[in-house]
C-alpha cells in the first residue's frame, strides 16, 4: 500500500512533457490512435491504393457492421460480463426481418419485429445471467446454439432474397460517397461514446465492473442494469444484421457466423479489460478499425491468402504489445 501511495505521489515531480503525455494517455484510446496512425503511415507507403476515397469507403463499410455490434459487447465486458450469442442474434434478426419483408410485410413494422426479437433474446440472456447466476460465457454459448438452431428452423436453411429495393436502400443509399450503414455506425458509436462518458445509467456499469458488491451496497440496481446491457447488445447486433441484409439486398443464411470472436477481439484490442471496469467505445471502434485495416491492406498488397492469417495473428499481438509499451505503468 505504501508503495502505491508513493509511486502515485511521484507524478507531480515528473517532467512537464511527461505529465502532458500522461494526461493524454489517461484517455486509454489515445495510444491505440497513435498506433493506428503509425500503421496508416506505413501502409500508405506500401501501396498507393490505401489512402484513396474509394478505399476509405471500402474500409468504412468493412468497419460499419462490427462497429455497431462492438458497442454492446464493450458495455457488457466493462460490466464484467460477456456475450457469445451476438453472432446468432445478428443472423436471427436479419432472417426474421428478411422473411417478413420478402413475404410482403411492410418494411418499418418488419424491422420493428426484428428488433423485438432482439429484445427478447437480450432478456433471456439477461435472466439466465442475473437471476439464475450462470457464468455469462456458458449461458450465452448455450443460447447462441439455440438461436442459431432457431434461425435454421425458420429459414429452412435458405438465404432470403426477393427483398424490395426500398429496403435495400437502407444499406446501399450513399451520402458523400459513403453508404448509409457507415453513417449510421458513426452516429450510433458517437452517441454511445458520449453516453458512456456522460450518462448516469452507463456510468453505473463501471462501478459494477470494478466492484459488484460495493455497487449493490451503494444502491445500484446491478441485476437490472446488466439485464438492460444484454438487451442493448442484442439490439445492436440486430441493427447491424438488418443493415447487413439491406446492404447485400438479401440475407445470407450464414451471416453472423463467428462474429462474436471478431468483436470481442476488437474490444480487447481497444483496451477493454476482460476483467471488467475498463474500456471506451471509441477504443473498441479503433480495435475494429485495426482489424479491418489489416485485412484490407493485406489484400491490397495481394499477400498470399495462406500467409494472411499468420500475419493477422502476429500483427494483432504486435499492435497490442506496442499499445502496452506506449502506455506507462501509472495509467495501466
Amino acid at each position, binding site marked *: 500500500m505504501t508503495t502505491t501511495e508513493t509511486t502515485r505521489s511521484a507524478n507531480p515531480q515528473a517532467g512537464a512533457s511527461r505529465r502532458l503525455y500522461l494526461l493524454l494517455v489517461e484517455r486509454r484510446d489515445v495510444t491505440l490512435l497513435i498506433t493506428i496512425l503509425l500503421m496508416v503511415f506505413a501502409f500508405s507507403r506500401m501501396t498507393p491504393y490505401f489512402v484513396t476515397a474509394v478505399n476509405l469507403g471500402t474500409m468504412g463499410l468493412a468497419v460499419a457492421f462490427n462497429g455497431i455490434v462492438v458497442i454492446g459487447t464493450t458495455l457488457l465486458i466493462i460490466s464484467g460480463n460477456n456475450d457469445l450469442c451476438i453472432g446468432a442474434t445478428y443472423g436471427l434478426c436479419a432472417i426474421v426481418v428478411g422473411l417478413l419483408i420478402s413475404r410482403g410485410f411492410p418494411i418499418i413494422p418488419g424491422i420493428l419485429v426484428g428488433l423485438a426479437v432482439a429484445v427478447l433474446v437480450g432478456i433471456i440472456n439477461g435472466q439466465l445471467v442475473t437471476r439464475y447466476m450462470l457464468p455469462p460465457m456458458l449461458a450465452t454459448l448455450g443460447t447462441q446454439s439455440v438461436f442459431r*438452431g432457431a434461425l435454421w*428452423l425458420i429459414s429452412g436453411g435458405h438465404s432470403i432474397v426477393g427483398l424490395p429495393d426500398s429496403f435495400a436502400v437502407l444499406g446501399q443509399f450513399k451520402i458523400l460517397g459513403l453508404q448509409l450503414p457507415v453513417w449510421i455506425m458513426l452516429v450510433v458509436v458517437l452517441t454511445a461514446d458520449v453516453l458512456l462518458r456522460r450518462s448516469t445509467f452507463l456510468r453505473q456499469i463501471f462501478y459494477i465492473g470494478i466492484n459488484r458488491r460495493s455497487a449493490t451496497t451503494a444502491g445500484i440496481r446491478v441485476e437490472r442494469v446488466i439485464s438492460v446491457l444484454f438487451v442493448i447488445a442484442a439490439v445492436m447486433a440486430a441493427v447491424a444484421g438488418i443493415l447487413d441484409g439491406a446492404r447485400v439486398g438479401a440475407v445470407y443464411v450464414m451471416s453472423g457466423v463467428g462474429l462474436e470472436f471478431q468483436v470481442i477481439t476488437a474490444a480487447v484490442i481497444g483496451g477493454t479489460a476482460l476483467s471488467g471496469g475498463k474500456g471506451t467505445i471509441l477504443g473498441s471502434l479503433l480495435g475494429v478499425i485495426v482489424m479491418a485495416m489489416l485485412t484490407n491492406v493485406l489484400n491490397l498488397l495481394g499477400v498470399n491468402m495462406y500467409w494472411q492469417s*499468420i500475419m493477422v495473428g*502476429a500483427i494483432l499481438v504486435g499492435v497490442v504489445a506496442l499499445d502496452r509499451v506506449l502506455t506507462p505503468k501509472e495509467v495501466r
Partner: protein
Amino acid sequence: MAQRLAGWSAALGRFLSRIGERLPKPLKRLGRALEPIFGAQVGALAVLDAFGAIALGMASPVFFTGANAIAMGVAMSGNVLASMGSTLVLLTGGFDLSIGSAYGLGGVIAARAMLAGVPVWPALGLGLLTGTLIGFINGLIVTKLEINPFIATMGTMTVGRGLINIMTKGYSISGLPPAFMKLVTAKILGLPPSLVIMLLAFVLTDLLLRFWRPMRQLYYIGGSPAYARLVGINVGRVRTLAFMFSGTLAALGGLLFTLRTGAASQQAGTGMEMMAIVSPFLGGVGFGGEGSALGAFLGAMLIALVVNAIQLLGVAVLWQNVVIGTFLIAAALIGMARFQRASQRIQRERRKKEGEV
C-alpha cells in the same frame, strides 16, 4: 428437478463419507476425499450424466452396446484431452484459444515429418513438441509481454491455423508410411488407443491436480496471483507451464486423431477451443482457481452424451443446435442450483459454530 438431482448427489456424498468413517484407515481417506467432490457442482453433474445415460439407454436399445460405448468414448477423447489442458489454464485465471490449432498442427507436423522420412515414433514426438512449443510461446507472450491471454492465444491460434493451411495447402495429408498405417488399427487391451490414452490422461491430470505440489500451485495462483508471489510461488513460470501442458495435451489429441484417421486433416481442431472451455465450465471449473479435472471430464462427457443421443435418436439435423444449447443451459442451471445450496449450507453451519464461541 434441479433440487432433486442436487439432493441425490448430496445424499450420495454424505452416504459415502459415512461409510468412509466406518472403514479402515486407507479407505477412510478415500471417503473423505469423495465427500467434497460430490458436495460440489461436480456431484450434480455426475448425477446428471448418469441420469442422461439411463434415459438414453431407455430411449435407444443401441446405447448400452459395447460398440456404442467405445464409439462414444473415442468421440469424446479429443475434447477430453483438450479440456484437461484448458482446465489447467482456466485454473490460473487464463484462457487458451490456441488449443484447436495445437490439435491440428500436432498431427500435420507429425505427418509432414513422416513423409520427410522421419521414423514414426520420433515424428509423433515432434508433433507432441509442437504443442508444447505453442504453449511455451503463449506463456511467454502472456507472462513476459503481459498481454491478455485472450489476445495472446487468439494470435497463436490464427498463426497456427495459418501454418496448417500453408503446410497442407487445403488438402489433408494422407499416404502416410505403412509403419504408421499399421498403428491405425492397433488396439490397447482390445480398446482403441485414443480411448485408453484419454482415460489415462484424465486420471493422471486429476490425480496430479489433487496431489502433485507443482500443480497445486495453479490453485494458489488462481486464488490470487499477488499472494501466490508473496508465498514464493514463481507465478510466471507456473502459468507458462500450464500453457505448455495445455498445448501438449491438445497436440496429443491431434496425434490420436491422426492415428484414427490415418491422415492429417487440415480441418482438425477448428472451433475445438470453445468446447474445451465449455466442458470445464460445465464441470464447475471457474477462473478463480475453482474446480477439478474430474469436473471437466464430466462436462465433456455430458456434451458427448448429448451428441451421441442426437446420433442414436436421429434428431433432425437442423434441431441439433437447439438440443445441444438447451442441454448446455439445463446442465449449467442444475450445477448452479447445487452449488448455491452447498455454499449456503456451509455458511449456515459456520454461523452456528461462531455462536457457540
